[in-house]
């Protein structure tokens, strides 16, 4: 009984005004709501993709489309190897982001700098991989409105396969690019001792939230285009 009373008084104190109910500053509340909003943007894209895909007869087999990697010769057959490497890079960059946030909490400037550099390198590496893949597909004749690939059953495929692929991975790539820019700004601010002077690294945490979100979205995009 007394436990219940304590719980409800704490709650009343939390929500009673004069302070943040979540004990976080407003920027983090905004970031969470922004991420929810952005999840709806990607959700809408992926649902649109699903709607069109399941109302179309046949769809190209991803194993037959994504089977090359840089410096490989013509006719290489290494399905999904390259995209697995891309995904791995992105996930590792999330790990280094976690380490940067942790270092920030410890007020360890060197740790933040080191791990932010790793995260930025990871982001740039992912973008470069994506650039190579787009370029490669383009050289095979794929682009918005053009689809050189055949359906899994050998029939002609509609251009919506490439339309959705380039639009959605492009939109995700744009998010990664924005994330890299944000991370670079965070790195510069760290180097200029901005956060040291403020006494906290909350900005790194917020950038981290965004970065993890972009990673999470990639998991869905990856599943939809490369696995299903």
């Amino acid at each position, binding site marked *: 009984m007394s436990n219940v009373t304590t719980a409800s008084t704490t709650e*009343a104190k939390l*929500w*009673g*005004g*004069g*302070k*943040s*109910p*979540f*004990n*976080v*500053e*407003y*920027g983090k*509340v*905004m970031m969470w*709501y*922004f991420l*929810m*909003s*952005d999840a*709806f*943007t*990607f*959700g*809408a*894209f992926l649902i*649109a993709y699903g*709607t*069109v895909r399941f*109302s*179309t007869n046949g769809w190209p087999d991803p194993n037959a489309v994504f089977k090359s990697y840089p410096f490989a010769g013509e006719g290489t057959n290494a399905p999904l190897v390259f995209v697995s490497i891309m995904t791995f890079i992105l996930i590792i960059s999330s790990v280094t982001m976690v380490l940067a946030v942790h270092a920030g909490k410890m007020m360890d400037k060197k740790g933040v700098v080191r791990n932010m550099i790793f995260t930025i390198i990871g982001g740039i590496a992912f973008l470069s991989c994506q650039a190579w893949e787009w370029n490669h597909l383009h050289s095979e004749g794929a682009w*918005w*409105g*053009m689809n050189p690939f055949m359906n899994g059953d050998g029939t002609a495929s*509609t*251009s*919506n396969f490439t*339309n*959705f692929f380039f*639009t959605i991975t492009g*939109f995700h790539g744009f998010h990664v690019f924005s994330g890299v820019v944000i991370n670079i700004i965070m790195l510069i601010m760290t180097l200029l001792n901005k956060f040291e002077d*403020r*006494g*906290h690294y*909350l900005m790194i945490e917020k950038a981290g939230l965004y970065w993890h979100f972009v990673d999470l979205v990639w998991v869905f995009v990856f599943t939809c285009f490369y696995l299903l």
Partner: protein
Amino acid sequence: MSHEAVLHGHEGHDDHAHHEHHETFLSKYVFSMDHKMIAKQFLITGMVWAVLGGLMSVLFRLQLGYPEASFPFLESILGKWAKGGQITPEAYYALVTTHGTVLVFFVLTAGLSGTFANFLIPLQIGARDMASPFMNMLSYWFFFAASIVMLSSMFVETGPFSGGWTAYPPLSALGDASPGSKSGMDLWIIAMALFVVSSLLGGLNYIATILNMRTKGMSMTRLPLTIWALFFTAVLGVLSFPVLLSGFILLIFDRNFGTSFYLSDIFVNGVGALSNEGGSAILYQHLFWFLGHPEVYIILLPAMGMVSEIMSVNSRKPIFGYMAMLGSLFAIAVLAFLVWAHHMFVTGLNPFLGSVFVLLTLLIAVPSAIKVFNWLTTLWRGNIRFTPGMLFAIGFVSLFISGGLTGIWLGNAALDIHLHDTYFVIAHFHIVMGVASMFGMFAGVYHWFPKMYGRYMNNSLAYIHFWVTMAGAYMIFWPMHYEGLAGMPRRYFDYSIWESFKQFADLNRFISTVAMIVFATQLLFLMNFFYSIFKGRKVTTQNPWQANTLEWTTPIRPGHGNWPGEIPEVHRWPYDYGKDGVDFIPQDVPVGENETSH
């Protein structure tokens, strides 16, 4: 600043109030970061759009009322769009489309939430300003940019977009579909994209401010209903506008990069006309209405919140059923996301899916009815003061009932198939969300004008404004129900070619005449508004309406930072009217010893 100080960031704003800003004209009126000034910017930009949008409706009503007549003055205003004094069909569609877009988004979304969320949230929760004043300023300037782009779309050679405010493909997706589908549509999409960014920046700010910046003692259940309504509005906006943005991005690709997201195989006389294949125009409708329906509540909820507050103040009674009002706001906000396909009953939707949407749509009647009954019981035996704000609030309830009842008709798929795309629909949504929300906005302006400008508006002009608008709204839209039941379709340039609709010629002329009178009356309101800013009777007391909420504890003309000293602490809910024989007890008055809290 220590970590602790950051968590209570708004206390850091305290210094705002203490030292005088030496502000230039630019920083005070143009690039202002004061939420009260930003609210006024939204309000006045919204008014400009309301006049333009209203003028458009007068022009196309002229065509509908007098389809054969020619008015030479039209040619001098519209040039080639009214050759020989008669509006061309292209111009008619452009007018209808732009009227819809402008009124729905620029007036009733940005003009309404933008104004009152900015103005009331910090004042009523007891905060110095928004969580991020800078983002707030950006939100206005994105809206301004959207306005400029939308305005310039009206001056391109091929005319503004003319495929209806919903911008369905293929009219919106194929540049050659109609004159307005060319660069007019490109500008329309750019304007709307900027608008989405503006509403996102604003919405995030409103949410974070309400959650984080409430003054001491202002618990969530002590918030005025205005704030709750604005909170749900912001959540709806933040979650539904991004879906529209996705839909628009796909539309841009269809228009400019040769994709077929919304375009299936199109045949003309049995021959494939275009190379597009495999897309779905219905997909766009789903994405659009996933925003489009919550948008109705984005427009309506702020009005509901303000009406609740104004009614309680002017009935000198607590709002009836505060928790029920709050619950019904929540229910409406949730249901808003689950009913979008009721706009699509005639698209060939699976009938089973249709029946699910019928059920969910009709469920909205429950929270809506709760709200209506609570408003009526708030009025019941109240000591009612018929201020202009109060009259418009009562007018809102009247319109919400009449428009809401026809919503029950339209929510039924079987009836909707008959009534879809007729004047019945026009009558329904204009009454229930268009005019009703305008009434909410008028109520808000009349009620909070003394706080905004430190002066009163002229009451006599306001009463004329109210009665003409109230009577006019019904005289315009009531007859449209009959026209719609008789099958008269919307979006047609000229009805006189049908024998069966010729009988409505007189009725249409009547509607058009009233529409012009009502439009002229709105100019009276504008005159009153701008005259009162400079010459209105000065407010001499801090709390002219004897209201309980915190905005009336600020000085008559509050500066940046709102309260010169400490922010008041809150000790009670905002609806202690007529409690224990005391007319009103403001929220910052501590609870007396023998007093029970509500």
